[in-house]
């Protein structure tokens, strides 16, 4: 690709210039601070090369919060542009780029890593394990995600962002209609991050199946562990489809194949089809762990076992199968036969049944419970009615004939924001607040947290409820402006106000992290809320020691930790320590992923020599890794005693 220098670095847009300057200054500040406080080697040794699932979890969550910020800014820019007819805040090209990156970032670089971060931190604890099945792979997963994310994010300052929507539909995304590096960034960044996700899927699937502590049969696992297991199963079967589809489109764009093009024998609709074969399971990948988080929180703060645990398990297992049978509902209007549309219409309605069952499980769990209204519980309570609105409108969309009316309007936009925000995002907030003392040894301030909660939930409804009516009134999605005569002005203005309320709430949330770090009292026990039911609360200290459990707990029933407390058993009394085998840190994943980033960056600009050098580098690191005979180290009994004594103080 022959790019002039001023096309390579994006210039001439004041917004982007501002971003470039702030990124530059921010980068310099971080580097300077690390050097000044001599933290480089600490950062590298303790965090970046760590294979500890807890540290990786925290790094995932921090990246996700950063992406929530970036994606949120994108969202606010979209809403600003649409606040009034004829706004000139973003030109159409820039608008297209912003909504495209918003979608990709929110789903793939915010929701996924946030949930994977929580799963990383909590699931090994809940199953009473000391780490995951493949700790090295876990670090590699994190780095491939991180490099994919970084690659995607630099697109807007170097070379230009993708602008064909988060769905990257062909033929729009082919070279003919989307020249330049933007769409290449999309393909390669998601490809790299997707490999990481697939590895996470395999890793946690094996971890949950093979590393449960003594006595924990499948039907004694916590609901969060169950939903994680099923999520991983869906990942294992859905992500390869994305990998293949992305590779095919990459071939079209870089090497001139004609798979999805309008020329030759290409079929653009095949991309749409393959995208949604992955895409619909993907929406379940981001909602199932959320269901798990709400289940944990609701049963904890209602002080009751989850109602109809078995029905819950059956319904998520059913979802795992059905989620692969509904993908066509995303393109009913693309001219399928009536038989095909009817079939997928019915399967789509069928999948809302197991989803609906769970709502009743949560309601009955709370029925006659003694509820404590903590912030995580508030988020979970708000989830129920809001998610029902999203689900009901989903069933409306599921009727193929009716969807001809709703498709590609704001009605659809509102549907998926209702399910994704009140489902996934509420769950991320709730889960982070709930498990915060596990991760950082102190709670988040409840009062500030409640402010953030109320402003966010009200803002969310103010923002998205009007969009249903805009959609019914015919406002299409992905338009950069409209006319006063369209009559959409009032509702759009309201919607924008709601969006800024959510932005404010996010800032309060982040401020709360700082405030609580300064002022919250430090937790003294492992059971920070005093109501913990599962094994993550059974650790000696609030933040578990790096080996998690000095002696692995034994499980006899559901809600094992609650059980132990009822029976007056103290997990810590068992001091029959044995040396603990732990995996060693490794620096190859970070290097390997950086080389992947380099190779991909070369491909984005079709500088093949960069790509080749990067690829050779990847193979060299793989070879180096395969001669790595380090199989971990032992924590001695003395060290365990010391750590436990310190924790018990």
């Amino acid at each position, binding site marked *: 690709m022959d790019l002039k220098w001023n096309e390579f670095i994006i210039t001439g847009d004041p917004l982007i210039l501002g971003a470039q300057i702030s990124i530059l200054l921010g980068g310099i500040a971080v580097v300077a601070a690390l050097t000044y406080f001599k933290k480089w080697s600490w950062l590298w040794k303790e965090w970046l090369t760590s294979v500890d699932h807890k540290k990786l979890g925290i790094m995932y969550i921090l990246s996700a919060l950063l992406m929530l910020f970036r994606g949120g800014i994108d969202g606010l820019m979209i809403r600003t542009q649409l606040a009034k007819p004829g706004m000139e805040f973003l030109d159409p090209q820039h608008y297209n780029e912003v909504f495209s990156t918003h979608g990709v970032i929110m789903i793939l670089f915010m929701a996924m890593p946030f949930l994977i971060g929580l799963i990383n931190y909590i699931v090994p604890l809940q199953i009473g394990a000391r780490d995951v099945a493949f700790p090295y792979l876990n670090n590699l997963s994190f780095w491939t995600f991180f490099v994919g994310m970084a690659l995607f994010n630099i697109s807007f300052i170097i070379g230009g962002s993708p602008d064909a929507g988060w769905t990257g539909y062909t033929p729009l995304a082919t070279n003919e209609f989307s020249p330049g590096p933007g769409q290449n960034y999309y393909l390669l960044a998601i490809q790299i991050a997707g490999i990481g996700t697939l590895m996470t899927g395999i890793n946690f699937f094996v971890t949950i199946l093979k590393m449960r502590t003594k006595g924990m049969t499948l039907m004694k696992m916590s609901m969060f562990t169950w939903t994680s297991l099923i999520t991983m199963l869906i990942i294992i079967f859905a992500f390869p489809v994305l990998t293949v589809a992305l590779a095919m489109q990459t071939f079209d764009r870089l090497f001139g194949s004609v798979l999805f093009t309008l020329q030759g*024998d290409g079929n653009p609709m095949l991309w749409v089809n393959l995208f949604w074969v992955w895409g619909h399971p993907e929406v379940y990948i981001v909602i199932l762990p959320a269901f798990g988080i709400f289940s944990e929180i609701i049963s904890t703060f209602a002080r009751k076992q989850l109602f109809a645990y078995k029905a819950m398990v059956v319904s998520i297992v059913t979802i795992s199968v059905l989620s692969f049978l509904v993908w066509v509902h995303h393109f009913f209007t693309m001219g399928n036969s009536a038989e*095909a549309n009817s079939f997928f219409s019915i399967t789509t309605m069928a999948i809302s049944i197991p989803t609906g069952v769970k709502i009743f499980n949560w309601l009955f769990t709370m029925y006659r419970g003694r509820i404590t209204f903590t912030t995580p519980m508030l988020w979970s309570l708000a989830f129920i009615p809001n998610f029902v609105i999203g689900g009901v409108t989903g069933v409306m969309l599921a009727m193929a004939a009716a969807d001809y009316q709703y498709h590609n309007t704001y009605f659809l936009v509102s549907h998926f924001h209702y399910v994704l925000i009140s489902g996934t995002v509420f769950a991320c907030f709730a889960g982070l607040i709930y498990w915060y003392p596990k991760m950082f040894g102190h709670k988040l301030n409840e009062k500030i947290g409640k402010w953030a909660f109320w402003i966010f939930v009200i803002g969310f409804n103010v923002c998205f409820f009007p969009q249903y009516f805009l959609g019914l009134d015919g406002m299409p999605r992905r338009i950069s402006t409209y006319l006063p005569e369209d009559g959409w002005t009032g509702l759009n203005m309201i919607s924008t106000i709601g969006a800024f309320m959510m932005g404010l709430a996010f800032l309060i949330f982040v401020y709360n992290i700082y405030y609580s770090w300064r002022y919250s009292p430090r937790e003294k026990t492992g059971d920070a809320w005093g109501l913990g039911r599962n094994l993550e609360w059974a650790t000696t200290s609030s933040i578990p020691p790096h080996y998690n459990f000095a002696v692995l707990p034994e499980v006899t029933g559901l809600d094992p930790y609650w059980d132990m407390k009822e029976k007056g058993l103290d997990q810590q009394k068992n001091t029959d320590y044995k040396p603990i085998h732990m995996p060693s840190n490794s620096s190859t994943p970070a290097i390997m992923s950086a080389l992947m980033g380099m190779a991909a960056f070369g491909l984005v600009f079709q500088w093949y020599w960069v790509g080749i050098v990067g690829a050779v580098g990847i193979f060299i690191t793989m070879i180096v890794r395969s001669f790595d005979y380090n199989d971990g180290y032992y924590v001695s009994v003395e060290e365990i005693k010391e750590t436990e004594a310190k924790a018990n103080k």
Partner: protein
Amino acid sequence: MSQQTKKGHFPWKHIIGFLISIALTLVAFATALWTDWSSTTIFIIILIFAVIQAALQLVMFMHMTEGEDGGLISGNTLFGFFIAIVIIVGTYWLMTSGHMHMGMSM
């Protein structure tokens, strides 16, 4: 069943699997060589025999169903098989029916 081979008895399972595999291969071969059925029919028959034989190998030689994870591995394989069929058949159906197939040379 699995105990037999483990205890060093005569490996019946392998022998039977081997014989059935040979039979399947010969029948497929014969169909291709000595029948005058249309090539589509022959293709389908060979395909079916190939799938049976692959399953046979997994069960008889690679002991997929045995051991403590046998059920799990078999279940996962079946699930994977099911998903693959859904994706392929579904995609083929969609791409060849409705208005979509217009302009496609499939």
